């Protein structure tokens, strides 16, 4: 194996080392302060508040979309039910004979029951 190369001129001098360490600490001052204060209750709350607010915003957006789509469906159903000339019984799919029986509040005879059955078929 060949002898090592003397890289002494490339080594960091003590002076350069001190300069770099000081510079790192100077530029990291804000981060160190943030970390030192990180245990205060207000900052802890602040740390939780941001993700919680973000989650709430996403949840609100999803719920809003679902609500909007369900409202549209309900309106569509209401539109069908409120077609001009259509009664409640018609909207519910109840035959006219049954509706007439219900309106008179009388006991259905055999013939009227057969008529309802035929109408249903």
């Amino acid at each position: 194996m060949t002898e090592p190369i003397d890289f002494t001129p490339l080594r960091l001098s003590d002076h350069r080392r001190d300069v770099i360490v000081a510079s790192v600490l100077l530029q990291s001052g804000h981060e160190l302060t943030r970390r030192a204060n990180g245990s205060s209750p207000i900052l802890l709350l602040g740390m939780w508040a941001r993700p919680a607010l973000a989650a709430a915003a996403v949840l609100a957006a999803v719920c809003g979309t679902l609500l909007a789509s369900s409202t549209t469906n309900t309106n569509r159903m209401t539109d069908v039910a409120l077609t001009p000339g259509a009664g409640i019984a018609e909207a519910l799919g109840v035959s006219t004979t049954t509706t007439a029986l219900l309106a008179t509040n009388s006991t259905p005879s055999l013939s009227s029951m057969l008529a309802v059955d035929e109408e249903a078929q």
Partner: protein
Amino acid sequence: MKQGDDVFLVQRSLAGDADAYSELVRRHLSGAYAVALSELGDTRDAEDAAQDSFIQALERLEECRDPSKFGAWVRTIARNRARSLGRRKRVRQAEPLETAYEAASASDPSKDMERSELRANLERALSTLKPVQRQVIVLHDLEGMKHGEIAFDLGIPEGTVRSHLHFARRALRELLGGLYRSGEHDDRAH
């Protein structure tokens, strides 16, 4: 956990202890610098990359899963920073070597000059090596890392590390010998 070991220092740094982080930086600066130098081949750029990597390391300290391996973790950051800096450097115009680099040095100016010259020669010689050869020789001969550690860091077999080291040393010796001889020739000519 002993007071003064990396795990303790990382935990203190997480709590914002400036003295603890200062000690961590002091302890692992040469490693990060060597990695950056092995990537960039330029001492000033390597210093910048090493400095940036420690600033970034503090911001991402929670990501250091194994605080006992803080040194290896910060070396990875330094390597990435150096690569990023290298890409940007290739884009911008290269600046002339040795400007006022040692102006702030408190040592003897004549020694500084001599050191600057040697450093410039070494940097020039290093820049001619293949990137992997430069990485291996700087990490081994400058930082004193073992073959196995370098192999792990670079993700290559240990035998390949030895081979690269051998050829890098031989190439540097030839280059540096040539540079010194040409310097003597220039002196005689003047």
